[in-house]
């Protein structure tokens, strides 16, 4: 994985660049300068198109995710920490991620407009990784779980789009959260690489 990061550095998406991107323009909103703050921050979106079918890609992606039972989180405060961590760990898949939710945009488009469409938004992540960022800055909770969008791109291809986790978190200015987010980048890349490999093999 470190090899991958080094090569990303070489093509301009590495850690030093992301840290530089995270310069924040923070200003009070003129409408109500006591209760609202807006901050500008730079984000890096990744989009790729790959020659596998939508069905194969989504099947492979979902097969690599555990299933998060959001209701189970309500029981956690009553548990000893180690037991709670062990419970959360049972929800993750082989590559450390759980599926929290998926929204079938394609089905809605098809139903409302009669237009053939395959497109899905996935909400996925790992609660134990998330807490390692949110404990340093609450605002990280806006960005995790992560989102990933998959759409059929024609001719047996899919287009996959997501915002790079480290670029979302870099804006918060927490070195500790940044370090976790960079590891998250690598895990997401590994997940997508394995998804493509599985989809290609199917």
């Amino acid at each position, binding site marked *: 994985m470190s*090899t*991958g990061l080094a*090569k*990303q550095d070489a*093509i301009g998406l590495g850690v030093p660049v992301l840290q530089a991107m995270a310069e924040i323009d923070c200003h009070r909103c003129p409408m109500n300068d006591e*209760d*609202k*703050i*807006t*901050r*500008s921050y*730079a*984000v*890096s*979106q*990744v989009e*790729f*198109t*790959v*020659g*596998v079918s939508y069905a194969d890609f989504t099947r492979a992606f979902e097969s690599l995710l555990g299933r998060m039972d*959001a209701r189970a*989180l*309500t029981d*956690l*405060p009553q548990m000893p920490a180690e037991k709670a961590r062990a419970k959360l760990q049972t929800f993750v898949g082989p590559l450390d991620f759980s599926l*929290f*939710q998926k*929204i*079938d*945009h394609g*089905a*809605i*488009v*098809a*139903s*409302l*407009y*009669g237009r053939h469409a395959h497109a*899905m*938004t996935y909400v996925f992540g790992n609660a*134990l990784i*998330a*807490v390692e960022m*949110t*404990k340093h800055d*609450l*605002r990280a*909770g*806006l960005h*995790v779980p992560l*989102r990933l*969008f998959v*759409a059929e791109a024609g001719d047996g291809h899919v287009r996959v*789009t*997501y*915002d790079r986790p480290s670029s979302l978190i870099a*804006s918060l200015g927490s070195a500790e959260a940044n370090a976790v987010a960079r590891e998250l980048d690598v895990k997401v*890349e590994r997940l997508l690489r394995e998804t*493509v490999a599985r989809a290609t093999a199917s």
Partner: protein
Amino acid sequence: MPLDLFGYESCWCASRMATLRTKFTCELVTIWSKKSFAQVTTEIEALLQRYDLAELARLTALGDAAKLAAFVKKTGEPTEFAIFFQLDQGSTQRLAGIPIESRFYLFGNATIAQGLFRYSATAGLGAPVRFCVSQHDGADTRIDIDLPSAFFSQFPELRESNVPAELDARMIALLEKIAG
């Protein structure tokens, strides 16, 4: 040999994959409230209904546009927006010994979103819109949300759509009202 998506000089997919990286500027809006976390989240959940995603899936599978539109309209009452997903993050925070309440939401309107998809299917990355309510013990409650128009600026095709600006005006106003 060309680099693949992740910068590897491997051939498993290099010939079948094209990667595009886009940098854009987002705007994080933080709304502060003197109300407690419980008050704010209770008001949100009283005002916004929750989408029954199983029913949404059933109706989309039926392909009955009128029934689906009616379902979306009813679930959206009275604001037109409803919750697609929510997640309590405070319980995991306390695992790390942090006295924080935090709840993540995805909210939106399935038919308003079509005003985005008309211009760019990829807009689905940001629809529904996410926001997070949180409170450190003893501190004010905060609502964090990416300004929709800034978030959707990563999709240049959406420049012609008035939906992001509409979402800015309506969603931020709604959250400010709840916070106030």
